[in-house]
């Protein structure tokens, strides 16, 4: 549906040239919710604006629904943009127009007759749950309601693509959830292709099918959300995920030296990651039964779900004689669980904690 090839964007700024995008390649399939995550200044907003040509790339190709956007003239581009709805962090509603008039705005621009506009706007008001607010002005609405108006407005011209530029970044967590649910809902109902720009991993986890991590104008990592979440490769990705899934050691071990060889009184800490149906297999119980001489301490555990796939993360500590511990590691290696060896760490003295 969307194919970006070798996108470059260079800005002239008083401080010199700024290379905002450095050869971005990205393909987004029809009906997909694709997340692009990055820190501020990473280039994600510029990237999404290259899709509807609000920013013209310095070089590269932008193919949207079979149309090469960079080659369109002004009036062709205006028509093409009607196929691409967009919502914004600060909603960008007309303060002088009512909710109804705001939603009708794209249709007014296309000179659609009044009665047809009414036929189109009424169901949209219902879809976003603002039927009773039609004659109010944006200033009378809450942030979440304003974004609902933004969504309805973006949908008014029957677009095939919805671009969301930090659409939930100005909203509180509860409102964010309800807006994300709405986006997911319209993605399904209207088989809309959605591009989500955000700096919050929560948003990606909640609704995206695929994700690209953008950093310093390049895509650092990409893949299905499940893949990227359960097996992040790049430090920047790990950092984003760590907001949701803590990578820190349990408090009792924090701050202590991690050694790769056994030291007296230390535990061998392992991070175990269970994925899919195996997440509830009794692997640990089996290990304890099969590997006598190993003491196993559960230090941290968390069971989550990404797109309906169970996803468990545990930290356990092993102690016992060296052979027994090796035996246990081999046993785990043969199971459907990913094992990350953290190292030997001493437990803090109780009174020091």
């Amino acid at each position, binding site marked *: 549906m969307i194919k970006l090839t070798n996108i470059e964007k260079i800005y002239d700024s008083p401080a010199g040239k700024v290379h905002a995008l450095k050869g971005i390649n990205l393909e987004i399939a029809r009906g997909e919710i694709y997340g692009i995550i990055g820190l501020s200044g990473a280039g994600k907003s510029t990237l999404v604006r290259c899709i509807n040509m609000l920013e013209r790339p310095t070089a590269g190709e932008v193919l949207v629904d079979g149309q090469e956007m960079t080659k369109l003239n002004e009036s062709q581009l205006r028509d093409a943009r*009607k196929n691409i709805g967009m919502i914004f962090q600060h909603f960008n509603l007309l303060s002088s127009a009512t909710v109804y008039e705001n939603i009708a705005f794209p249709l007014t621009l296309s000179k659609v007759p009044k009665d047809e506009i009414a036929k189109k706007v009424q169901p949209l008001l219902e879809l976003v749950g603002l039927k009773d607010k039609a004659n109010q002005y944006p200033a009378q609405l809450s942030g979440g309601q304003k974004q609902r108006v933004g969504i309805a407005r973006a949908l008014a011209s029957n677009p095939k693509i919805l671009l969301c530029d930090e659409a939930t970044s100005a909203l509180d967590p509860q409102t964010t959830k309800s807006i994300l649910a709405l986006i997911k809902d319209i993605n399904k109902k209207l088989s809309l292709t959605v591009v989500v720009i955000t700096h919050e991993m929560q948003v990606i986890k909640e609704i995206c099918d695929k994700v690209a991590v953008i950093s310093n104008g390049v895509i650092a990592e990409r893949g299905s959300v499940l893949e990227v979440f359960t097996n992040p490769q790049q430090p920047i990705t790990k950092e984003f995920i760590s907001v949701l899934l803590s990578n820190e050691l349990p408090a009792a071990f924090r701050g202590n030296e991690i050694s790769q060889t056994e030291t007296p009184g230390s535990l061998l800490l392992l991070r175990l990651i269970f994925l899919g149906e195996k997440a509830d297999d009794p692997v640990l119980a089996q290990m304890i039964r099969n590997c006598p001489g190993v003491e196993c301490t559960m230090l941290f555990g968390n069971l989550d779900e990404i797109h309906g796939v169970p996803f468990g993360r545990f930290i356990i500590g092993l102690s016992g004689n060296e052979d027994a511990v090796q035996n246990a590691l081999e046993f785990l290696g043969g199971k459907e669980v990913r094992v990350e060896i953290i190292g030997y760490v001493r437990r803090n003295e109780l009174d020091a904690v």
Partner: protein
Amino acid sequence: MIFINEIIPLLTKALGETVYMVLVSMLIASIIGVPLGVLLHTTDKGQILESPALNKIVGSIVNALRSIPFIILMVAIIPFTRFLVGSAIGTTAAIVPLVVASIPFIGRQVETSLKEVPAGLVEAALSMGATPMQIISKVLLPEAMPSIVSQLTTVIIALVGESAMAGAIGGGGLGDLAIRYGYQRFRPEVMLATVVVLIVLVQLVQFLGNTLAKKLNKR
């Protein structure tokens, strides 16, 4: 009573002339000045009709006109006034310099108002495929309207003041009355009455402007 009988017709006539000069000048100046403000704003850097050269040229002309004191402008453009209205003296002739002085003033005021419209709104309209004309008529002007009304109120009040100077070219009006009767004929009570009428007039204009701006503002 004699005083009242004498002064009321004088004041009414002068007030009528002032209102005529101000309203007609304001109307004509707005018809040219508002589009000028739109031009100044939209051709600026980063705006929908960005054109640095045009913006600089128009901006310089506006600045030049605005730096000429009204009393000098009035005299300086007498040939132009005569060409337009056939005479350089009288109330209608006074409208020409009033319009010429107000156009750049309105232009800058409208430009200031348009600058207050958040850039995101223009971006949103662009993303929906709006043409530059649609952005001007459906986004910029409606969104800036409360502010434009406030700014134009200021222009009208400035026009009341400038129209008083028009007396110097036989324009009539309240200023002329105050000078001829109040000052030159040593009639301080006429001077006082004129000033009171001017104060009431300005208050009224400001009140109406504020009320309209408030009514238009949905923010």
